[in-house]
């Protein structure tokens, strides 16, 4: 494996352009510096330095690799900083993972409430997929997650899963007037083979779509990591987005949505650990989200054909129900 000292030697040789100068800065002998760099090169199977009497410099491969080597050194420094702050006792931390809509529509009020009760708390909010929430819940590095998943996905060992809000099945969204969107009947996936598609890379939707329409059967396509970006691309005329029904977006009237046949039903689920106990801040957030759930389910009527219909708005606005 790569060792910190090897990267330091490489960096110093690159900076000073000379093994001798690097050795004197590092208080090491020249053969020691040269040995470390050579071992690093052997380890990686790449020549990183171009050695010449007029000065040593990085090869093309060395230039490409050096950001990774720096990130490696930096990540080790981060471990030391974090353990230092743990030994000295830093502020309480809470790690939350959520899909983007949840971050914008559900969590802001929850955090405003948390702030009232917890004066010094550091909340880490990650977008679904940026960290592995399920893995994190099992080992305690993530406290609470809001996830959009098919209803038939199992919670799995060590995880509590609560149903929050039904979102219906996957469908196709595009501009009014698109020939495939003249009807509201379910569309078969293979009808999309010739279309420009915008698809989501979030695990569960990518998995379901992969089963319905394999990658090899697609035309021009854009892969993005959330619905909001997909909508921006649809509005720019890039193609049809495969996504869940979103009354907020469709309320603008310029877009249509059609369900896909064969897609399971998706919902927002609240995930938490069934093994590790939540901290007081985690408990407060969890109970806020449970109360949100009881409010919101009475706010939405679930229509199996049309999807979710908003009957009352979360925030005052003049949008109309689709």
């Amino acid at each position, binding site marked *: *494996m790569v*060792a910190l000292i090897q990267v330091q030697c490489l960096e110093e040789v690159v900076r000073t352009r000379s093994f001798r100068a690097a050795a004197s800065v590092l208080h090491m002998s020249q053969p020691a510096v040269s040995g470390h760099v050579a071992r690093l090169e052997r380890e*990686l*199977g*790449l020549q990183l330095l171009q050695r010449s009497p007029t000065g040593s410099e990085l090869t093309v*491969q060395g*230039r*490409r*690799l*050096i*950001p*990774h080597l720096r*990130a490696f050194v930096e*990540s*080790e420094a*981060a*471990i030391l900083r*974090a*353990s230092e702050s*743990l*030994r000295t006792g830093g502020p309480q*931390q809470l790690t939350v993972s959520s899909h983007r809509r949840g*971050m*914008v529509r559900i969590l*802001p009020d929850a*955090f*405003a409430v948390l*702030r009232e009760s917890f004066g*010094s*708390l*550091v*909340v*880490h*909010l*990650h*977008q679904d997929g940026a*960290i592995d929430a399920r893995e994190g819940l*099992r*080992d*305690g*590095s993530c406290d609470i997650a809001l996830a959009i998943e098919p209803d038939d996905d199992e919670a799995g060992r060590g995880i509590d899963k609560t149903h929050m809000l039904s979102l219906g099945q996957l469908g196709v969204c595009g501009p009014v007037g698109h020939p495939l969107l003249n009807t509201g009947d379910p569309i078969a996936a293979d009808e999309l083979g010739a279309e*420009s598609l915008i698809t989501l*890379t979030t695990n569960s939707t990518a998995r379901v779509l992969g089963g319905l329409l394999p*990658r090899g059967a*697609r*035309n*021009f*396509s*854009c*892969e*993005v*990591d959330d619905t909001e970006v997909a909508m*921006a*691309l649809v*509005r*720019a*005329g*890039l193609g049809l987005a495969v996504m869940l029904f979103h009354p907020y977006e469709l309320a603008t009237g310029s877009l249509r949505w059609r369900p896909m046949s064969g897609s399971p039903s998706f919902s927002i689920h609240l995930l938490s650990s069934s*093994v*590790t106990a939540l901290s007081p801040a985690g408990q407060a957030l969890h109970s806020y989200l449970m109360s949100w759930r009881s409010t919101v389910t009475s706010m939405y009527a679930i229509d199996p054909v049309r999807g979710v219909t908003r009957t009352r708005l979360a925030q005052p606005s003049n949008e109309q129900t689709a």
Partner: protein
Amino acid sequence: MTAPVQVQCLEAVVRMKSFRAAAATLHMSQSAVSGHISRLERQLNLQLVDRSFSGATLTRAGASLLPHLRAFAESAESISKSSEFLRDGEAHRLSVLTFRAGLTHILPKALAMLRESFDSNLVVQLAQAHYEEICTAVADGSCDLGLTITLESETCAEVDDREIMRGGPLGASGLPDHPLLRRDGPIDPSELAHHALIVPRSRGVLEALDRMLPVGDRSFVCIVSDADIALNLAAAGVGLAVTIPDPRWLGTAGVSWRPLRGAPETTVRLITAHGGPTSAPAVALAEYLEALARSRNGRG
């Protein structure tokens, strides 16, 4: 120093809740696994695992530290992956990494232009990333093009990094009746002390904040994935969002914005490999992005 194998052992023990089961999955002896973890604990001078007869679990310190340990093991992994890629790999599809406003406000127009010229069989992968992540990915060829918004002081020698737009100074946003936003002109960073803050998880912004406001002067802090989420939380009254760009870019309703005094200026930059992108779609997309930036700069 920390070794990836120590992190692997720790992860396995935590997953299996037992040293014996972890040793079996790792094809190591139980004493080797236990030795790796004890050495890690000694190096960090922290107890990471609670050992009991009913099973091994992470301590609170272990749980807080695990994400850092994972990032470390991942970065070790990424070194070996990218050296493999450099030894024999070639890029195939068009992959673009950018900041949030780039995804929602700049790229859609450029991609619509690209679609006119490359109609079929092109897979464009778009993802959100921070400056350092973009530089790393462009440098090793796993990303073709990056578009980022950063502080002027940040540079990266491994890639071509060209300013295409001005981004304005770092500022603070919140509800219009927030005490710090009821006045005009810049906010002095010391005034942020003891106000709830929302900060995007970008190294540039986090470091600028470290310089401007000592950790001891902070109260409630929310660290989120990007400026857009930070502004949404600010609009809900959670606190002040410290972000680039200012909210007018993202069109967040209901927040006021003021610059921070002495805050660094920011720029929007196009990031490509040295000598420019090589594949035809990447060359075309870079041209469209520069053209869009010119027309935006022209409008002031």
